């Protein structure tokens, strides 16, 4: 047999090129002439240029490729069980997955729905296959994540919290920030939501911390399932980034879009930062038991993925098209992470509120302290005593840390925009919108609510832009409730009807577990109600006081 003879050479036959196939598929569309196409979600942008398809893939090759990816994922899950993964997994890590995996399937399926919104906006059908693949991809992500969560529930030592997952998602004070993320993908101006917020910013920038950085940390904690699922998910993201960039390029040449693009890039970046960095930063830094000083901290990961990869190589080149980039916000976000301890304050907040969560949060230990101090000099002085308090107060019978005045923690206001509390006290701002007073974690979030989500932007009518709605301050939903009654109403109680799903430790003995009786006797309250009730002078004093912050008392 000739050395150069291969089966492929024997069986090959003339076919059409990939580019030709993509062109012919794109020619399936036409402009209706009998009946006008249905109304779609409106946008204030003008898209006159046909977006180009950067991927040139057709569904015939897409579906088998995805099936193969699935086979690898599900095979790996089987292998993890056979290899007794859960025997060695770190419960500290898996507990945080109760929160993460409660949040993420809804944003994913929201992205699928949003493909309906962009699918009809652009002229031509070149990108239709890209949008179709993204729609099915997001359906994949949503259900593959529900499957992973079920798998944890079936195999991890403590399934409570996984078992109520979607109900918990709708009710918890921490998952609420994920809804801001998801609803932003599919509500309001169609381009703002489905193109800029979703594909240009969330998927291009922040999925790298979500789906690449976080799985690495999972593997360090003995969890091989999360990397298997999420790196497979991330492999779909390049397609979505391509869709986003292509739409962006179709709009960017029209200078009348620049003003809106600048608004949306700024809004989307700031809100993704506020939400994703709060959540993923906490999972990576506080959900891990691995304290290898050579590994990157979340701040270092952020610098790699968001600053270098997104800001420098994706955003900055947009300037040559005449887009004004919000450099100051990137610097401000970096400062919030590195200098203002945004992630650490978020983890602290989640921990203070452990009793109204649906997962366990154990205290950080001396080993953790050392790592944090190494990566974030000054950390111990600000947070060391807090974690010692958490360890001390983790025993049933102690006063719940949320209400324990010995600790010195002062419960924060909720940001009306990103819905993460106003944790960086010195940045706290408030403002009136439509005659009502609201609180914000930062100037960026104040601007988002008051300026970006409005009917007019810098003198230009923006009739398609969305509006903030709903009961955005979680605390208001339970204002005046006893915390035990609130927990019951939330459904965050184990099947015995009294033991809390959340626990401030990882001790799996019934005698160590908190019940409703252990937390009863303290009332929840809405900080915003109290703030609104103040006179203008009292309010100024309260703001100045809030901005001063608090000091955790020494824990002996």
């Amino acid at each position, binding site marked *: 047999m000739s050395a150069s003879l291969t089966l492929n050479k024997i069986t090959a036959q003339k076919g059409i090129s990939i580019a030709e196939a993509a062109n012919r598929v794109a020619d*399936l569309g036409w402009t209706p002439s*009998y009946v*006008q196409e249905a109304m779609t979600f409106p946008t204030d942008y003008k898209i006159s240029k046909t977006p180009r398809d950067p991927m040139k893939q057709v569904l015939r090759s897409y579906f*088998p490729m995805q*099936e193969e990816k699935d086979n690898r994922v599900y095979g790996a899950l089987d292998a993890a069980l056979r290899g007794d993964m859960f025997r060695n997994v770190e419960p500290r890590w898996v507990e945080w997955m109760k929160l993460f995996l409660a949040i993420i399937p809804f944003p994913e399926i929201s992205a699928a729905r949003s493909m309906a919104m962009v699918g009809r906006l652009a002229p031509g059908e070149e990108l239709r296959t890209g949008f179709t693949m993204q729609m099915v991809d997001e359906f994949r992500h949503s259900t593959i994540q529900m499957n992973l969560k079920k798998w944890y529930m079936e195999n991890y030592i403590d399934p409570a919290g996984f078992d109520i997952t979607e109900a918990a998602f709708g009710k918890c004070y921490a998952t609420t920030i994920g809804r801001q993320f998801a609803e932003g993908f599919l509500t309001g101006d169609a381009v703002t939501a489905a193109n800029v917020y979703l594909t240009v910013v969330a998927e291009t920038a922040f999925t790298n911390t979500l789906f690449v950085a976080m799985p690495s940390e999972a593997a360090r904690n003995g969890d091989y399932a999360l990397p298997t699922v999420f790196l497979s998910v991330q492999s779909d993201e390049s397609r979505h980034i391509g869709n986003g960039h292509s739409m962006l390029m179709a709009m960017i040449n029209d200078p009348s879009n620049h003003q809106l693009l600048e608004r949306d890039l700024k809004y989307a970046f700031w809100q993704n930062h506020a939400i994703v960095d709060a959540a993923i930063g906490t999972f990576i830094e506080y959900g891990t038991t691995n304290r290898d000083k050579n590994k990157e901290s979340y701040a270092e990961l952020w610098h790699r993925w968001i600053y270098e990869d997104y800001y420098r190589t994706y955003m900055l080149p947009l300037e040559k098209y005449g887009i004004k980039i919000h450099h100051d916000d990137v610097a401000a976000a970096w400062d919030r992470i590195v200098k203002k301890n945004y992630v650490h304050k978020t983890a602290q907040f989640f921990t203070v509120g452990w009793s109204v969560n649906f997962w366990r949060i154990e205290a950080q230990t001396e080993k953790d302290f050392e790592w944090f101090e190494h990566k974030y000099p000054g950390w111990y002085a600000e947070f060391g005593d807090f974690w010692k308090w958490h360890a001390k107060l983790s025993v049933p019978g102690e006063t719940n840390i949320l209400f324990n005045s010995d600790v010195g923690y002062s419960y924060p206001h909720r940001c009306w925009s990103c819905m993460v509390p106003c944790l960086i006290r010195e940045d706290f701002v408030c403002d009136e919108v439509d005659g009502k007073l609201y609180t914000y974690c930062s100037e960026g979030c104040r601007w988002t609510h008051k300026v970006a989500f409005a009917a007019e932007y810098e003198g230009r009518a923006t009739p398609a832009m969305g*509006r903030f709605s709903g009961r955005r301050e979680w605390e208001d939903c339970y204002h005046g409730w006893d915390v035990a009654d609130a927990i019951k109403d939330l*459904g965050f109680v*184990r*099947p015995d009807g009294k033991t809390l799903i959340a626990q401030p430790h990882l001790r799996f003995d019934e005698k160590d577990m908190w019940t409703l009786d252990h937390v009863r006797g303290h009332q929840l309250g809405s900080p915003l109600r109290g703030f609104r009730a103040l006179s203008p002078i009292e309010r100024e004093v309260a703001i100045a006081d809030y901005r001063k912050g608090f000091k955790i008392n020494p824990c002996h």
Partner: protein
Amino acid sequence: MSAQASRAAAKPAIVKSGAAGSAVFPGSDSRKYNYFEPKGRKATHYEDMTVDVQPDPERYLLQDWIISFPDGTPTYSKDWTAAKSSNWHKFRAVDQEWERTHYQRQSTICGMVQNTIENGRRSGAPARFDAAWVKILQNHLGAYKHAEFGLGTSTMQAQRYGYTQMVNNAILTNSSYKLRFAQDITLYLSEIGLDLPGFDIAAGKQHWLEDPIWQGVRKSIESIMGSNDYLEQYFATNVVFEPLVGELFRSGFLMQAASAQNDFITPAVVSAAEADYERNLANTVELFHILGEDPTHGGHNIALFNKWLVKHADLALDASNHLQPIWSQPRVKVATFADALAHAKNRIKGIASELGLKLPANLAS
């Protein structure tokens, strides 16, 4: 003592393992999603993957939708269809599709279609197709692919609007099937075109846009695409257009006539769409049956569906009648339009009867 408890009793007090069963405590055996009512005795995997992922303020969405459209419409609204339901969460897709089963099925179809085309071309089959048949494939199958694409884009639009995850995902997979099939035909014709001198790949679109034979179908499809009610789109697609036009052309013509023209490839390619439709139809019938039987809104819904049926059946019937000349074009005639139409009418009669709908007079004959 349960097996789990006895295992735990043998363990030391400090639990070193994160595996299920390594300790017993309240909730340690709560290993099922417990926040929804399964349709059957036990939740299916599809239900676990699907139910409640799209939240609802009437169930668990404590803080309500937190972003709205400028007119105050929330992220999801019941007002996006004229149909009403006392429980939008009741519906479960009959095909039980979630991502894995969807990719498995789509991938199997892609492999089947591609193998059939490759092997057919390798054996030189397209060159043996009857010349008149080649023109039919070029002009009419080439035109029909646009109808499939129109249904694909229409359902892609519709999957944004449903009030629950179950409704939207069923419409999403419908869209995925339609768009795949539109591409299947496009690539199939492109590939056999390589073996057929003079084959004009652009002719199909020209017929779709200009040939009087196809204008009824185009109008019918554009009417579905033009509906502002997502459930009307879903209803018109699967309850009306598919049996009266889609199946009529696919099964009533292409699949019956092809072999007599020396074409064994086209029926295999087209058969995938017939199997897709069976699943899409099952999902559709289940949804509209639930809505028609709704204890509070059943009467309203049935009246609405009857209205949609009349509107879209008029268009679809006109479309199918315009297609009649195609049945005369093959050199070897093995199927008659009259038989195919009678079969199509029977099919829609059966579907309408399942749903408790009144068949319009023009379909009853």
